[in-house]
């Protein structure tokens, strides 16, 4: 979880200094959910990351490719990024670690994931296709088309809905008729569970169970992770002070995990501090790598418009 926390905090600093182009959507506060997912998805599985995906992208790289520095470089728009700087924050993909890329059109890949899962089913591959979405995505038509088709075709899809309470500024309660998002998914006859997304153990167990079920061929599973995002709006904090305090101080997933580990007596405070310090150092090395990497060759802008066809300017 420290990988994600340090990654996002480092990125926020660099963004504020003008070193990171575009927009910034951090996953601060949602680390437990991302760790739980990353821990159970193999490089041969497929995941479509959500809008606040730097963390899971970096974890997948670190776990399956040894380092997350190419995700950092992509966010800096560098030639060494996973997409050579052509994708950026919302389009970082690397199929070698199972990352099929985010999509800036919320929920768009809820349709795409069907094809990946169908291909696995038709080929007889024991693959899990994971689609990570936010609460706002529930409003999209693809949400409903996808759940319906996943169920009627019994596809191996893990839907992970990260409900952080708000779609930009709109609270879940104002945007969705169903009280709980999980109830909406339940209507399609899919196995559904609601999970405390800030409790690493609960999240870990929920993903482990769902992935095992999907690999066993029982069809799609929908998990709703209840969590809260630390990042406010582009213009600043808009939520009530008590709410902010509650989630950042009482429900911080890293603080909760730390308390749990210390209570178990398996690790000491010093050991946890050391892990955090070493992780921060590693992230700073990734940032340095990104900043020292070359910019893409402008000629790259016209490459790969069509597979196998040269670009032709009119």
């Amino acid at each position, binding site marked *: 979880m420290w990988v994600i926390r340090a990654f996002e905090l480092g990125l926020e600093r660099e963004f504020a200094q003008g070193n990171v182009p575009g927009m910034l959507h951090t996953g601060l506060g949602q680390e437990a959910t991302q760790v739980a997912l990353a821990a159970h998805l193999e490089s041969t599985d*497929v995941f479509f990351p959500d809008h606040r995906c730097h963390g899971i992208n970096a974890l997948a790289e670190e776990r399956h490719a040894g380092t997350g520095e190419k995700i950092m470089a992509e966010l800096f728009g560098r030639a060494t990024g*996973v*997409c*050579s700087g*052509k*994708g950026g924050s919302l*389009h970082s*993909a*690397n*199929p070698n670690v199972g990352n*099929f*890329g985010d*999509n800036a*059109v919320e929920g*768009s*890949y*809820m*349709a*795409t*994931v*069907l*094809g*990946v*899962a*169908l*291909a*696995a089913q*038709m080929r007889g591959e024991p693959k899990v*296709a994971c689609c990570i979405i936010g609460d706002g995505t529930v409003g999209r*038509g*693809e949400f409903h*088309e*996808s759940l*319906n*088709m996943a169920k*009627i075709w019994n596809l191996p899809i893990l839907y992970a809905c990260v409900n952080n309470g708000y779609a930009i500024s709109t609270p879940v309660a104002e945007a969705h008729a169903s009280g709980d998002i999980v109830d909406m998914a339940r209507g399609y006859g899919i196995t559904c569970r609601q999970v405390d997304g800030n409790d690493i153990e609960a999240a870990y167990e929920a993903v482990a169970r769902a992935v095992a079920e999907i690999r066993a061929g029982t069809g799609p599973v929908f998990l709703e992770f209840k969590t809260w995002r630390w990042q406010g709006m582009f213009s600043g904090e808009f939520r009530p002070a008590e709410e902010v305090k509650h989630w950042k101080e009482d429900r911080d997933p890293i603080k909760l995990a730390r308390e749990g580990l210390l209570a178990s007596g398996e690790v000491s405070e010093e050991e946890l501090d050391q892990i955090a310090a070493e992780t921060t150092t590693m992230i700073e090395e990734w940032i340095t790598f990104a900043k020292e990497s070359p910019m893409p060759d402008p000629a790259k802008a016209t*490459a*790969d*418009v*069509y*597979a*196998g*066809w040269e670009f*032709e300017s*009119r």
Partner: protein
Amino acid sequence: MTTQTETRTRTFVQALNEALDLCMEADPEVFLLGEDIGAMGGDFGVTRRLFKKYGATRVRDTPLSEAAIVGTCVGAAMVGMRPVAEIMFADFLGECFDQLVNNAAKVHYMFDGQFKAPMVVRTACGGGFGGGPHHSQSVEGWFLNVPGLVIVAPSTPEEAKGLLISSIEHDNPVLFLEHKALYSSKGEVPEGMYRTPLRSARVARTGSDVTVVATMRMTVEALAAAEQLAAEGIEVEVVDLRTIRPYDAATIIGSVEKTGRAVVAIEAPKTGGLAAELSATIAEECFGVLRGPVVRVAGLDVPIPFSLVLEKYVLPGRDEIVAGVRRAMAS
């Protein structure tokens, strides 16, 4: 579909069906999906008998979920399969616009070549039979502005088959337009596998006085217009575009350099579409040899009305092309 071998005459629909059958036979990774394409064989019969031959796994009926249909194609194509979707009417493409424009057309580019999208979306377009505003449109203009997408539009049964085979084997997403007025048209169709090249226009008729660039039904109308005009001593060269994006500018330019006059004949509304694009390119590239302005023959800028009298008034045909050629010849 007839399986007789003594004749090679086939309808446009039969030619398409042969292409699908041959591609499915040759490659187990080719599969079909769409609304009512299974036992029913599709609204226009293009997938007839394929369900029986290949089964429900490879000929998949779907709910009325166009975004999910095309999204399924994108995902399956990203892992190397070759899906072929049928969108019953081109007018419904708005329902899956995002999948075509933001996913299919962009996954290869935005992910730095790590994925390809070898998929085909077949769809029935065009008017002329009283289909009304939502069953009659020519939609190539909606997608003309999308880099990464290939748009293919045959005008004969022979090329319908050859172009569909080429499209299924191609590594980029293809929007394959089938004009409904051509479905029952007949022509000589070679047996077995053959490929009509993509990104390559065809000179459908040679002539020395004026070039008419057309596509789909308008190619047929242009050839009829050319016959009529030949009787008056006007020799029309007809260029069938075949691939609308990226299009074969060299063949168009070569023809106009020869004739010095150009008419662009497209069924879609005139403003901002393929007719405008082609005439702009001809003006840019052939200004020095043009004897007069490029003439656009296109649909009126209105939705397509239901009543056949109204529809005929809106859609261009042979008479409008003849009038367009006369205008070009007058300058």
